[in-house]
């Protein structure tokens, strides 16, 4: 039996994974989700900001990673608009993040009746990541002289009183690459800008050292982070839906890893 398990056709595993993803989607249910400390820290930080404060969200993900990061963006923006916090959107790493950022900002703004230019703005993309971060520390308008639709920054009402990072309470970097390190290195170390991150599962392990040292005020880890934040703001969305289904896939994969290891060791003992 163990020999058969070791030589199982990988397509059977694909079918199992597909079934475990599809079947839970056909039913409505909710799996209990505990909020982790990094997510709670980010929530507490934003919750502690006064109405009228400003946060900046750097959308540094592309179409290949938006399923994990977009629910985070939506959840955090809902929280901000509920509290009257203004949101500035920018993109530095992925040029194709601009339409993604525009889409999620518009969706949340419609839901929360937020007004473009007064409650939120999307400045768009600028090349030269580290130089852009450093430039905005001196003056945002020196780097972003207009928003993504080419409206001069001076004509955007909410940007009238925002000159540089001194007026930005938090930078949330939603990232699928190495941009968080850039923001910490230049934004936090040089300008003492408060940084939080929402990252894909692939890179989340690299973020914990920065969290432990306080260089990150909070961290959203993949689908789970989005689901946790949605729970905190009591607005279940794509993150909650996703983590419910993902939990079954995780169980399946854990089971397969355990069975595979048992089969491997049993077979090795027999060969010896």
């Amino acid at each position, binding site marked *: 039996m163990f020999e058969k398990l070791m030589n199982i056709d990988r*397509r059977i595993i*694909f079918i199992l*994974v*597909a079934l475990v*993803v*599809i079947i839970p*989607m*056909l039913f409505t249910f909710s799996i209990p989700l505990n909020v982790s400390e990094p997510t709670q820290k980010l929530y507490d930080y934003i919750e502690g900001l006064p109405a009228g404060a400003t946060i900046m969200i750097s959308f540094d993900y592309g179409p*290949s*990673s938006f*399923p*994990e990061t977009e629910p985070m963006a939506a959840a955090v923006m809902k929280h901000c608009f509920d509290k009257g916090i203004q949101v500035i959107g920018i993109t530095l790493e992925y*040029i*194709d993040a*601009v339409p993604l950022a525009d889409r999620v900002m518009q969706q949340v703004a419609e839901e929360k009746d937020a007004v473009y230019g007064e409650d939120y703005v999307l400045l*768009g*993309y*600028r*090349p030269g990541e*580290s*130089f852009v971060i*450093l430039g905005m520390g001196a003056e945002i308008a020196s780097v972003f002289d207009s928003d993504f639709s080419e409206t001069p920054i001076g004509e955007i009402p909410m940007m009238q009183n925002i000159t540089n990072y001194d007026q930005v309470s938090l930078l949330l970097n939603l990232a699928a690459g190495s941009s968080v*390190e850039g923001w*910490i*290195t*230049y934004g*936090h*170390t*040089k300008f003492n800008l408060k940084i939080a991150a929402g990252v*894909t*599962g*692939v890179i*989340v*392990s690299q973020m914990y*050292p920065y969290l*432990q*040292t*306080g*260089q990150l005020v909070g961290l959203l*880890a*993949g*689908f*789970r982070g989005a689901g946790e934040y949605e729970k905190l703001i009591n607005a279940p969305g794509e993150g909650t*839906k*996703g983590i419910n*289904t*993902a939990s079954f*896939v*995780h169980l399946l*994969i854990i089971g397969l890893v355990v069975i595979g290891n048992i089969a491997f060791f049993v077979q090795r003992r027999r060969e010896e």
Partner: protein
Amino acid sequence: MATLGIWIAAFLTICIYSFLYRDNPFYRFAEHLLVGMSVGYIIVLTIYFGFIPYAWTPIKNAVTGETSALGFLTLIPICMGLLFFARLSDRHAWLIRYPIAILMGISSGIMIPNALQTDIFAQIRGTLGPYSVIGTLSAFEIVGAILMVVGVVCTLTYFFFSVEHRGPIAGISKVGIAFLMIGFGSAFGNTVMGRVALLIQRVDFLINGWLGTIF
């Protein structure tokens, strides 16, 4: 029109996943289409968001007199950038040293002091910091602080090749390997979560976004 887009997206999604059965022409068609479209899309966006606002517009405005002649200064970085193409000619390949030297110099000057502070000093402070307030820590936090130092020392020992890994050094580096394996396991688990997220989003699209328009 939106419905047509949904059908095309659904068809291409199924084409890509058909590879899980085996390689086939539908998969290759979707793969080539994705690569071609992605490159074309990125080129257009780069021209629109990069070349036009930072190169074309300043020069055009300087030529037409809409702005001062300072717009011509943009020609300096453009010419520097063009020197990268000197690599294509054996005779002029040496010219590429200039843009590379400028890039290296500026990047190093900006990065090294900040990176040292971010990744060395702050991390050392974070590792040893808890010992300065150890009296205020809970038992759980003290164990965490001890594990942190043990993990850092043992892992660094594993990567220290100036002494032979025998005797106590071998033991310490083996502990380091254990910490590394825990780290890799954590990274693998998170990667699985990330990949599963992508699959869930696509299946959700197929069930609710595509089949939802039919039934």
